[in-house]
């Protein structure tokens, strides 16, 4: 099998993984040095495919042979897919060649489990070591960690990789037991915990050898089991706080060829994935906690309005908010004002009072923001609109049911 054939199969097998970020690495440069590659701290998306997702890394599997039988995965051992395996040198050469042509910022390498978790992990580490030590490659490397692998191998991976990830895949232990019989939430958590301990040690001892400077991340598949958004978000929150993850990626389940009966035949609405990312952003950057966005009793995020607007409509007692008096974290909670505009409003406030026209020039969404704010020259009529009325006026327009999706997409 030639390289093109392998690339076709092993890129196809890797595309269900949502993460493709190349940000967070320390600054590196090859100016005046042997070898290639640079990182600026900010990732660069080098292209976009027709699914709207970016290409920033060469995202491939080392092999799609796999002895595990995870029901949601196209590469499970009982799946009848064409199989292929790259050699170590092939992965290294592809990475370097693509990098020189400015197609990618680095490598995202994952693998099916062959022989054993340790053997598979050794192979992944071997490729990263070749790139770093033989080719002096200074671009981004993200390694998928095999949870059952020896912690010593995880430590070795962190020496070469910018980011490590361990996929939790499903939000509850019960779902993992059912759909991924060879995996165990317990060992996944232990692997994440061992990565966090090494990151902590590194932070306390800055001169110690480098370890995954861009931190760790994980992925959860949405819609392969019956878990609701509350379960997903509260699992994400547990993972963020327990293991200091940089990101949790949500991947709407894509139906796979010859799908087993244990997983659904249809994908969940793509909008659900989008709402989860929005809610996740509120957890990471706005100081929200999961229980503010969804009650502990369960439920899903609204599809017609974004989670911040939903929170504001359910908590009208905080609004309207006087932008000339409120503190920055509350301003950022107003629907239609982002973190950057909240900061700008506070900065401008030191010079003069905030007026309605300022918000227009800051390009805030005025329709969204107006019922929730008070400025020097504007205040909404108190109690004029109930949350229900507001919600109807602010919701995204309902769409005609899609009877013939193929025709519509064409």
């Amino acid at each position, binding site marked *: 099998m030639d390289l093109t054939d392998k690339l*076709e199969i092993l890129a196809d097998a890797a595309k269900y993984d949502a993460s493709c970020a190349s940000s967070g690495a320390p600054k590196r440069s090859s100016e*005046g040095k042997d070898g290639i590659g640079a990182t*600026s701290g900010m990732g660069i998306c080098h292209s*976009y495919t027709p699914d*709207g997702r970016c290409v920033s890394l060469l995202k491939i599997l080392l092999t799609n042979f796999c002895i595990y039988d995870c029901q949601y995965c196209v590469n499970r051992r009982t799946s009848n897919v064409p199989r292929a395996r790259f050699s170590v040198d092939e992965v290294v050469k592809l990475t370097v060649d693509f990098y020189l042509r400015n197609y990618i910022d680095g490598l995202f390498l994952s693998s099916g489990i062959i022989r054993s978790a340790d053997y598979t992990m050794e192979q992944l580490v071997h490729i990263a070591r070749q790139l770093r030590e033989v080719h002096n490659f200074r671009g981004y490397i993200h390694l998928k960690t095999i949870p059952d692998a020896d912690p010593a191998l995880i430590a070795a991976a962190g020496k070469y990789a910018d980011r490590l990830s361990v996929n939790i895949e499903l939000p509850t232990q019960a779902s993992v037991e059912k759909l991924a019989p060879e995996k165990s939430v317990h060992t996944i958590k232990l692997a994440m915990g061992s990565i966090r301990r090494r990151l902590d040690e590194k932070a306390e001892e800055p001169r110690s050898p480098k370890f995954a400077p861009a931190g760790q991340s994980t992925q959860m598949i949405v819609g392969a089991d019956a878990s609701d958004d509350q379960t997903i978000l509260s699992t994400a929150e547990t993972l963020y706080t327990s293991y200091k993850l940089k990101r949790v990626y949500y991947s709407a389940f894509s139906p796979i060829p010859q799908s087993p009966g244990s997983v659904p035949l249809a994908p969940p609405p793509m909008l659900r994935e989008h709402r989860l990312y929005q809610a996740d952003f509120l957890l990471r950057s706005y100081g929200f906690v999961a229980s503010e966005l969804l009650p502990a009793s369960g439920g899903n995020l609204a599809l017609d309005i974004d989670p911040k607007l939903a929170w504001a409509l359910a908590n009208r007692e905080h609004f309207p908010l006087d932008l000339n008096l409120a503190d920055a974290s509350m301003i950022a909670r107003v629907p239609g004002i982002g973190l950057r505009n909240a900061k700008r409003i506070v900065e401008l406030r030191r010079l003069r009072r905030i007026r309605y026209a300022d918000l227009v020039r800051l390009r805030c969404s005025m329709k969204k923001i107006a019922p929730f704010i008070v400025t020097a020259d504007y205040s909404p009529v108190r109690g004029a609109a109930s949350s229900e009325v507001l919600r109807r006026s602010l919701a995204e327009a309902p769409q005609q049911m899609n009877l013939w999706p193929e025709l519509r997409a064409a």
Partner: protein
Amino acid sequence: MAGTAGSINAAVAASAGQPLLVAGFAEWREAARELLAFDIAPHAVKWIGQRDEADLFAGAPADPHEAAHAIDLRQARPVMHLPRKLMDMLQSAACCRVPDRWAFLYRVVWRWQHGDQVVLSPADEDGARLHAMVKAVHREEHDMHAYIRFRERPEAAGAPRFVAWFEPAHDVLPQVAQHFVSRMGRISWMIATPDASVLWDGETLHNTGPLVSSAADLDDAGEALWLTYYRSIFNPARLNAGLMRSHIPSRFWKHLPEGSVVPQMVSQAAAGARRTGQAEAVGQRRGTTIPIAADKAQPQRQAPSTLDECRRCELWQHATQAVGGAGPAHARIMLVGEQPGDQEDLAGEPFVGPAGQLLDQVLRDAGLDRRTIYLTNAVKHFKWEPRGKRRLHKTPAQREIEACSYWLDQELAQVKPDVIVALGSTALKSVLGTGNVTLKDTIGKPIRHDGRWVITVYHPSFVLRVPDEASKQQAMAVMVDGLRQAQQLLQMKSEN
């Protein structure tokens, strides 16, 4: 005639009504500094950039006699120092190809010079435009970093090994070239644009005028592999061509190799292959299932201890692992804490975090060897709630203590200690099996319970939280006393 910027003549020329010709940011800055020194208002200055050829002859002085009112050079005033942030913004905005860029930038610094700091806010009209220009330039830099495609030339052809063609919308080539210098190491490359080219020979950058007039026409085998990758990494089940186009503006597509395969990919995905994510070309190949029995596929794992399988309460869900006791199997003193903390939860061992370190100190002060003591917790899973990015310890509820006493009872039955030291109230409630005891009544006073001595001291975490040093020493003294008492009780027992 246009005045030459960058000399004292700028102010003279401007006051004479002559336009100032500016080639770049450095010249503009010189001229602007001088104009500010003589307090010449923005509307009185006519700027021309090198690109703005149409304007070259438009700036003749309206009234040549006005030149007679040439400025008094003795009236120069000190110019305010511009903050770094403003200077960076000006420098970026200067790369934005708009006809009035120099005049606009001068208006901004003029307003700043006159104390009008609002000019920096995007809520200001000029400020909004400044921010928009900066954003457009940064965006163009980013797009050029992202969408330049190098093609490889045969080794025999010599330097440059890689060449690229790009049509930037703003003057960003110099800073973008620097990005590729750090990216490509000693490998030579060239980037050509309609106005200028840069060549990196592996050691230095060479700037030249336009060298070629279109995309480099080279055959590069690497490009075929890239197209294979591009087609395969796309998930047809998620087709969203609108989102793709919003990310890459159409003007870039014609120079991207993958641009030519996009229409076909979109129509194929839309025409029926959408039910699954697998690419058609892959689906047509012959498949293989892996012939391995399910029980052979199980990873080798240590058999999980029964404690890890505990579901007697809900705490296991958000904890990493259960933390059991540690110490000699027949230790005579058992120390019972409340529950594992953040560090213990990760390590799977009791008392390894900050509280554990304080406990070590107390044990040393009391003359006890940690290795002779059995250490455990009343509750085996970490109970916490999120506080920012941290896990904040949360006191276990009575029902959780009761559920977990199942495990403590087993430990007591196996170790059979003579003295139990309860650290804090949760431990005390668990050891005595009742919620109706208070720390205040029992602290430092040994109790007989179930044929053993139980002595209660503070929990080390409590000591860590005591704000002032004097009370902290006092609390530690209570702990040390308690542990000494424990030893004495042990001796009494052995004497009997």
